[in-house]
């Protein structure tokens, strides 16, 4: 009787052990847990760099038009926008020599701007040169160039030309003025 009792105990324990293992294994796929992670991309600034000074050329008195290259203008756009469009606006003072009489002045309505094609670009988007160039700058300024945007950072470089329409009575001399670029 003892023998019978002890062998039943062996079978009972073995069955329990197997059943317990089977239940837990079926109930447990690989244990998974998640971490909510974030990172930040911070937008930078939109800026423009222009030459500090430029010599726009020399013409003989009596010649009625004169053009010169202003030098390298670069827009750097680190805003990282979804639509990175921007517009470069150009204004100018009149160019004067001597005592700024009429014949010593080239008025803003006689000064025109041509961006020309871009010489280098980075990022997604399209550089759009000056429309209807040479474009008279006048007193309210003009869009010198603009960027039709796509996503992300970008930059564009161009070398604009400034064109002066001169009077027959234009006096000889060195004419100076300031051409101002801004970007937004």
């Amino acid at each position, binding site marked *: 009787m*003892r*023998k019978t009792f*002890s*062998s039943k*105990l*062996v079978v009972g*324990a*073995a069955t*329990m*052990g197997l059943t*317990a*293992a089977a239940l*837990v*294994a079926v*109930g*447990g*796929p*690989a*244990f*998974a*847990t*998640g*971490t*909510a*992670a*974030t*990172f*930040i*991309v*911070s*937008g*930078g600034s939109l800026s423009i760099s222009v030459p500090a000074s430029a010599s726009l050329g020399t013409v003989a008195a009596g010649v009625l038009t004169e053009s010169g290259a202003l030098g390298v203008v670069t827009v750097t756009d*680190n*805003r*990282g*926008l*979804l639509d990175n469009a921007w517009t470069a606006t150009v204004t100018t003072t009149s160019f004067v020599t001597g005592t700024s009489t009429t014949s010593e002045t080239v008025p803003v309505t006689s000064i025109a701007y041509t961006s020309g094609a871009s010489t280098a670009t980075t*990022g*997604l988007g399209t550089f759009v040169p000056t429309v209807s160039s040479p474009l008279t700058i006048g007193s309210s300024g003009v869009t010198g160039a603009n960027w039709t945007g*796509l*996503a*992300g*950072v970008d930059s564009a470089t161009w070398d604009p030309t400034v064109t002066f329409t001169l009077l027959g009575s234009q006096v000889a001399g060195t004419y100076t003025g300031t051409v101002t670029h801004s970007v937004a």
Partner: protein
Amino acid sequence: MHIQHSTLRRTSRRLPSLGWLSSALILALTAPTGGGSDGIQLVSSSGSTIGITVPTSASLGTARAGASTISGQLGTVTVTAAGVLGLLLPSFTATVTSTNFITGAASAALTVPAADISYWSGPVTASSGSQTAVPGQATASSAQPLSSSVTAFSSSGLVLSISTSWDPTIVVKLPGAVVAGTYAGTITHSAA
């Protein structure tokens, strides 16, 4: 002699039954409680009882628009594994996956895909119990993209219960046209 022989036989028959009972009792007493982030212990297909804890959240860093990568550590991941006395030693393999990371309205331009998220485990940072721990990616140069599941860490214990911790690094490759914003995703660790 005849009597002694039968006595010996009876004794040897009893021993196996006692052995089964005693091992079942020890399993109940030593199985770890808690350890998983919601306190559940599961038995893996290898037979080990596995627990895993990971950080609830992680800030991976900041970079300016136009940067090419962001890299940051996730925080400590800990896996515990327990074997069965007399039957098996503990072991585990931990794997990791990632979702895409998105900002705003999650258009293509506002998504960094999981394929651009890479993982390197680094070495063991803390452990208990004698074990052979194998990092998934010991150094930055062996980082793997999380476009599909990647082995994060594995270990085989030489004692009944082990714990293994590491602090993985996540490397985000930013697309050239990345848009500024806060990008969010989920890094999921599994262990079995």
